[in-house]
């Protein structure tokens, strides 16, 4: 028995040692492999390419599984938070709402409809006109009246423009329009995000296309030339020795879509007094994420030479910076940073102030993240007006977002990720609300991102629409 017992102890001891040896082996292998994995990720040595491909495939697969489980179609969608009125109000907000009721704010508005669209309107206080919008549901733009009735639609399938396209997003046959520009004759420019720009006539017939990696925003100059943001994925050795990064450019296209000029935004910063802004730039991926372009009309050039006519205002999200670029000198001549994070749509308004959509404006009174729209003097930086998530109408869009000052002093704000647009008075009263009716998901819990709602003046020429 004792012999057997000793043998059993020996056997158990050997087995324990073998088990311990395996654990040590496992740890050594894991530590060595992890160290090499980190090294490969940072230095790009073998098998960086294979690992990068595997990583991309992994993310895509994960996204597909996630989207399928949510019932999410292609395009751009987010969880709908619903109209702001449905959230719990603070006492102060409730008081304000009641005060507004006495002013006929809510009493004069339309009740919210179940299927979205225009949920209320105060006809006395809105700036009347038409609404042009693009959304994450499809490659189309819609023109609505103030009550949400569709007046006209432009659309074009991505693969009908570029049937041989093999780049990223090939699966997204309905790649959507990020931005549009409407001409007086009903023609429209539309950006297929990160791929190209198209011009269609009022009947959605393709007039021309240009695939230069256009994205986010465009503006049209008095002479008809088109200023648009482009990107190109390429190795920029001074940013990263071997890893391609997404570099942004300002491109000027002829009215017929041919490229006239292209300026690297990275280089425009580098050759300027503002090159220190690049200190905080990432060395990876989308290093700038420029999201706005606006041609300056020169109305404030007398106060600041950097704002001369023809210079271009841009918004560089990844650097939390807005900047003015002199296209002739090819460099940044003015920039401002410090008051916003991941911001969008800076725009000069009549009078010389600027509006901006600050996506991450801190926390609201409930401790929830909020966005804010600011009106400020770009020179003194003094704030003149703010609408933020603490207002009864609420505001939060972690990405995208837009703002436009209307001729009557109201401000039209697009809260992209919530699929909502509101028109607010200078006192912060919501006088018009539009909820994107494009919903998806098993419980309609997803709402298509509302990229931008543009108010078209009431006296705009719409005779080209006679066929509708």
């Amino acid at each position, binding site marked *: 028995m004792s012999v057997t017992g000793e043998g059993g102890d020996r056997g158990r001891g050997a087995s324990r040692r073998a088990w311990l040896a395996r654990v040590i082996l496992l740890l050594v292998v894991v530590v060595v492999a992890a160290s090499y994995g980190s090294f490969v990720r940072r230095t790009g040595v073998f098998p960086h390419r294979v690992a990068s491909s595997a990583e991309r495939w992994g993310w895509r697969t994960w996204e597909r599984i996630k989207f399928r489980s949510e019932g999410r179609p292609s395009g751009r969608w987010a969880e709908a938070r619903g109209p702001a009125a449905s959230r719990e109000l603070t006492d102060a907000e409730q008081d304000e709402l009641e005060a507004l009721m006495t002013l006929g704010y809510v009493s004069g508005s339309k009740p919210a409809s179940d299927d979205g669209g225009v949920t209320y309107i105060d006809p006395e206080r809105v700036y009347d006109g038409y609404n042009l919008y693009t959304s994450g549901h499809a490659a189309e733009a819609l023109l609505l009246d103030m009550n949400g009735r569709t007046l006209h639609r432009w659309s074009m399938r991505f693969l009908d423009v570029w049937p041989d396209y093999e780049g990223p997003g090939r699966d997204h046959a309905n790649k959507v329009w990020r931005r549009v520009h409407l001409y007086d004759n009903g023609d429209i420019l539309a950006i297929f995000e990160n791929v190209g720009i198209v011009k269609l006539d009022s009947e959605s017939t393709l007039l021309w296309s240009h695939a230069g990696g256009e994205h986010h925003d465009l503006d049209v100059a008095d002479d008809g030339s088109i200023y648009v943001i482009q990107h190109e994925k390429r190795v920029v050795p001074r940013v990263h020795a071997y890893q391609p990064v997404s570099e942004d450019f300002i491109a000027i296209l002829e009215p017929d879509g041919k490229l006239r000029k292209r300026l690297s935004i990275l280089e425009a910063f580098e050759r300027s007094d*503002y090159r220190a802004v690049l200190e905080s730039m990432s060395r990876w991926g989308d290093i700038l994420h420029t999201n706005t372009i606006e041609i300056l009309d020169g109305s404030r050039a007398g106060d600041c030479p950097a704002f001369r006519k023809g210079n271009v205002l841009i918004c560089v999200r990844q650097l939390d910076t807005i900047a003015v670029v002199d296209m002739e000198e090819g460099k940044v001549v003015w920039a401002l940073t*410090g008051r916003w994070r991941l911001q969008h749509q800076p725009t000069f308004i009549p009078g010389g102030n600027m509006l901006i959509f600050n996506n991450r404006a801190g926390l609201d009174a409930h401790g929830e993240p909020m966005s804010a729209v600011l009106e400020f003097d770009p020179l003194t930086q003094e704030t003149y007006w703010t609408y933020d998530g603490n207002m009864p109408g609420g505001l939060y869009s972690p990405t995208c977002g837009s703002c436009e000052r209307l001729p009557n002093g109201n401000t039209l704000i697009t809260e992209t990720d919530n699929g909502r647009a509101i028109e607010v008075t200078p006192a912060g009263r919501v006088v018009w609300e539009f909820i994107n009716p494009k919903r998806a998901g098993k419980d309609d819990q997803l709402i298509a991102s509302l990229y931008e709602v543009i108010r078209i003046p009431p006296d705009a020429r719409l005779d080209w629409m006679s066929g509708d």
Partner: protein
Amino acid sequence: MAYREQNRSGTGARRALRLGVFVVLAVVGGFTLGWFTAYSSALPYPRFEWGGGRAARDSEADLRPPGAPPGLYSRSRSDDGASGVTINEADAVFPGVNLIVSGHVPEALLMDMEGRALHRWAKAFADVWPEDERAADENGAHYWSHATPGPDGTLLAIYDGLGLVKLDSDSGLVWSYRGRVHDAICPTEDGAFCTLERVDVSPDGEGGLAGGTADVITFLSAEGEVVRRIPLLEALGNSPYAPLLKREPAGGALLRANAVRPLGDALSNESPAFAAGNLVVSLPDIQAVAVVDSETEEVVWALAGLWRSMSGPVLLENGNMLIFVDDVGGHESDRTASEVRELDPFTQQTVWAYPGDATRPLQSASGGACQRLGNGNTLISESDGGRAIEVTPAGDIVWEFLNPHKAGSDGELVAAIPELLRLPASFGSGWVGEGE
């Protein structure tokens, strides 16, 4: 037997297969783990900084060059052995007397335009705080980083990061304040003044703020008593400019300042942010010059992006701002390039700049000082180079002082000049000479 052999070899093959699979899984798993920790810079992957890292540069700035004695020294850039006042174009300079503090010893020297000593204040750290032997060994105990004279011959002086003293004209101690003060002494009213002081900041669980050090503006009475403090971290964090704090500084320093000055009324009618009495501060960690409202104690204006680091901003009477840009930035730079800039704080347009010239570009990574003189010239202290120059608006050097205090085996090191201040020619009449 054959069956047993076969069985044994089959088991061995299975074991080898299992081991192989086990190792492959461990390799793939480990590699993936390492790949993603590097991707997110998560632990244990060390923090990675752009372009070699500001942390590295900051720590380099703190290091004394090899062979340097205690104090503030850098490698000398003038190789002809000249020192003292080397240029003095009497017709072009703004006449006066010069107060200089130097990195070699805790003293301040008042000298005329020819470089002749008129008066000297000096005080050893151990004479002020004899019981503090440990601090007496610290580098900051061996020089004054800043000194401000009073019309009666008194002098306020800072032992860098260690304390502040008020001396009479004979260098007798009037009072002392022991604290981590540095870089600035700004008179406010009735002999009171403010300075910068470094304090410890506890980790903040809610905001995710790591512990470290940050600067406060400390207001001291004429008798050296603390009147109030404005914590700059809160002044910025509670203001609309809080997004600037996302620029993570290096080395545990959460928010350092290297200059503070009260504003005059040059722009008080243009913008409420520039009300007289508000304080302009220089915050090199976040590359920003900011204005702090002295009543609400919040940052009400800031400008960033025009420099990698800077010091000594001052609002001129014409409404422009004069700034010593320690490092103009640009990630392709392989060396520090400094520049003194006069800019319109609203349009941001540079109206005048002095980057040095081809033979001697301005270069002082650890800071410098600048003063606009009554005739439009600018007095520049190029701290690292141990040099001060007076330049005309056209950029001509009309006065130059090279610090004669050298060190190193071949005199290759020169004591820094943290600041050289031009005072009116009449300054000191009545008491200059008494202490000499």
